[in-house]
């Protein structure tokens, strides 16, 4: 208070002494953190670089051999490709969603509650999140929410078939058509009867009170009559192709008569499995069972199959991290001076223009931080991919960090290659780090 000379005005000797003391104190402040970082983070990097130049056993020096393997191994290439997809899609998606949520929650009173809900996944461990999504993406519509919703929606718009999976007893006499139905090879004449035994009828598709199959009645001159029944006796026994007492009729099957390539008659079997095709002209008649009888029910999408697994896992990632982006951006939003927005509005700009020309530019620093943090995060992604991808899609979902784990711990125990992958990953993340540094430098100015 007494020496109020602006610009630090102590005499030079004292200033120098102070500077020395300051420096010594600075080292003291830095020492604990520095020591820990040196020993546990910096040294492992050096060690990894060193180790990556050796082979599996750690004895033989192979120079850049491991790095060569990285570039020639198709698994690593897939991993690299996937990381690229991750980097291009996930951070952008997370940031955009975070921005949208942040902006929208400003307008509602219960914004905080919403933020808490969307942020909550961050408090859940990666293991739990992985399990949650394994269950959500379960292929079976009876178990996985995603497919349950999709199949329900699909079934609203389309009807299901009567006997999915059923087929004629004799595949040679009545082979499948391209459309999924079946057509008889031999033709018959009007006035004859035909037996159509089916197998592969699931128990659940039979009527609640199935009736015994009946042999067809005599056909009039312009008719073809027949029976469609389930040609299988429970417990075995029974003669294939013949109507046994124990076998059940199949009602509701559509049968068509085809002459000269055109459908001339159509009938549906009744409760005894009998049908009558009428109004047939003389000539060869081919009997067909259209595909609509047998179409398999829609079973949903294979979320965790090789083609969709990476997008599916990215979805899980977004679920976890959108809240993080939202909170950060929301905080940034709160810092924007209201008057700038108000002035713009008063000048006649609509909401979109305000958003686009004022809000977003002012948010640029926060958006950049979020984006860069996400990019770094995503390049290192391990837990989610490791837990969610099933073994059959492991290759398709592979990312570098998982490949590194698989190579080091997962079997081959090749720490040379694993270290090389680690170094490689580090090099990949370097641009993001340099960007961070550049920002820091700019701030200094």
């Amino acid at each position: 208070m007494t020496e109020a000379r602006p610009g630090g005005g102590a005499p030079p000797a004292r200033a120098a002494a102070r500077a020395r003391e300051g420096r010594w104190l600075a080292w003291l402040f830095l020492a604990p953190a520095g020591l820990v970082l040196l020993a546990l983070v910096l040294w492992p990097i050096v060690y990894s670089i060193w180790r990556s130049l050796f082979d599996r056993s750690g004895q033989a020096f192979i120079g850049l051999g491991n790095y060569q393997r990285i570039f020639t191994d198709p698994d690593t290439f897939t991993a690299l490709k996937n990381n690229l997809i991750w980097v291009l899609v996930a951070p952008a998606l997370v940031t955009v969603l975070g921005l949208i949520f942040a902006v929208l929650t400003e307008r509602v009173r219960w914004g905080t509650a919403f933020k808490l809900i969307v942020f909550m996944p961050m408090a859940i461990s990666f293991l739990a999140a992985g399990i949650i999504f394994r269950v959500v993406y379960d292929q079976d519509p009876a178990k996985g929410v995603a497919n349950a919703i999709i199949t329900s929606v699909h079934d609203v718009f389309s009807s299901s078939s009567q006997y999915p999976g059923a087929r004629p007893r004799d595949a040679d006499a009545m082979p499948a058509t391209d459309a999924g139905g079946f057509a008889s090879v031999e033709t018959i004449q009007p006035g004859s009867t035909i037996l159509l035994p089916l197998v592969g009828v699931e128990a659940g598709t039979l009527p609640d009170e199935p009736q015994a199959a009946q042999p067809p009645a005599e056909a009039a001159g312009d008719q073809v009559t027949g029976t469609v029944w389930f040609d299988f006796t429970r417990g075995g026994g029974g003669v294939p192709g013949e109507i046994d007492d124990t076998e059940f009729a199949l009602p509701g099957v559509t049968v068509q008569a085809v002459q000269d390539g055109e459908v001339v008659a159509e009938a549906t079997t009744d409760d005894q499995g009998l049908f009558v095709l009428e109004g047939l002209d003389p000539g060869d008649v081919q009997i067909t069972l259209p595909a609509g009888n047998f179409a398999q029910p829609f079973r949903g999408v294979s979320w965790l199959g090789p083609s969709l697994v990476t997008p599916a896992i990215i979805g899980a990632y977004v679920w976890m991290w959108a809240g993080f982006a939202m909170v950060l951006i929301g905080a940034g939003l709160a810092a924007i001076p209201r008057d700038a927005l108000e002035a713009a509005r008063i000048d006649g700009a609509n909401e979109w223009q305000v958003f686009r020309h004022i809000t977003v530019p002012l948010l640029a620093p926060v958006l950049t931080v979020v984006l860069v943090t996400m990019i770094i995060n995503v390049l290192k992604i391990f837990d989610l991919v490791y837990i969610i991808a099933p073994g059959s899609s492991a290759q398709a979902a592979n990312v570098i960090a998982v490949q590194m784990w698989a190579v080091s711990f997962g079997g081959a125990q090749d720490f040379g290659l694993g270290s090389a992958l680690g170094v490689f990953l580090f090099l990949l993340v370097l641009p993001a780090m340099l960007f961070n540094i550049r920002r820091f430098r700019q701030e200094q100015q």
Partner: protein
Amino acid sequence: MSAVTGGGAAAPVPPTVDPEAPRSQPVRGRETWGSRITGFLSKGVVSVVLALVAVFWLVPTFGLFIASLRSAQDNTASGWWNALTTPAQLTIQNYRDLLANEGMVNAFFNTVWITVPATLLVVVLASLASYAFAWMDFPGKDWLFIVIVGLLVVPVQVALIPVAGLFGDLGIYGSRISVILFHVAFGLPFAVFLLRNFFAGIPKELLEAARMDGAGEWRIFRSVVMPLGLPAIASLGIFQFLWVWNDMLVALVFADSSAAPLTVALQSQARQFGSNIDVLATGAFLSLVVPLVVFFSFQRYFEQGVLAGSVK
């Protein structure tokens, strides 16, 4: 400010505007579309949209919660939503089993004994270092900070083997200390980054004034910087707490069975060949309680602090 208004507006605009009413005059092709959407977004619509999003966001977690209330047999037989229509299925047996398990209770305490020190240590070490970076002068300051920021990108796997060897030599491999130290090391880069940014934002005048009062660096640190830095420190604390509490990889490698935290102990509960949803879901929710409590109670510091550290 007027330079910003309606870039390219063709027609004069009436002085009193309702910002939420749809604009009818085309300004530029794309903006019409955008402005129509934002105009349409009245409070009610926004609320509905957000409500839908909130429900969608909650569904996965809710599903896991219901799964934890069903037996293993029920979980493999049908999806969790079936329990909503047959509430008789719900049972708290899974929770009872897990809580009765001594190993789990032990693991819970291990988790606390690992997470709290790891968080406190990171806060203390990073505060000291960040203050030095923000307000003290020493040679190589910039480069050192760059190196530390650079360490943000190092993946944990890189360090597992060498550090395991190091800890083995030190004789601490397998203990809680080894887990704590590892977490501290990997939490420091982000902590230093965050806190340094915040500390640098403290008004210089306050520090100058304290210096002129004769305070030394240490006193300034303790009585000026730390109190002011509380929001950033609190938010750092939350991040670090969450990360360490939920970690499994590091604990799996470095902790032996007596030091194992919840995440690892849960793994050991899993049947070797089962689908284990009942065990893992229950464990996940039991494990979730503490982080959520921490999160909710510190939430207000969190927003402030994160803002301060990043927008800087």
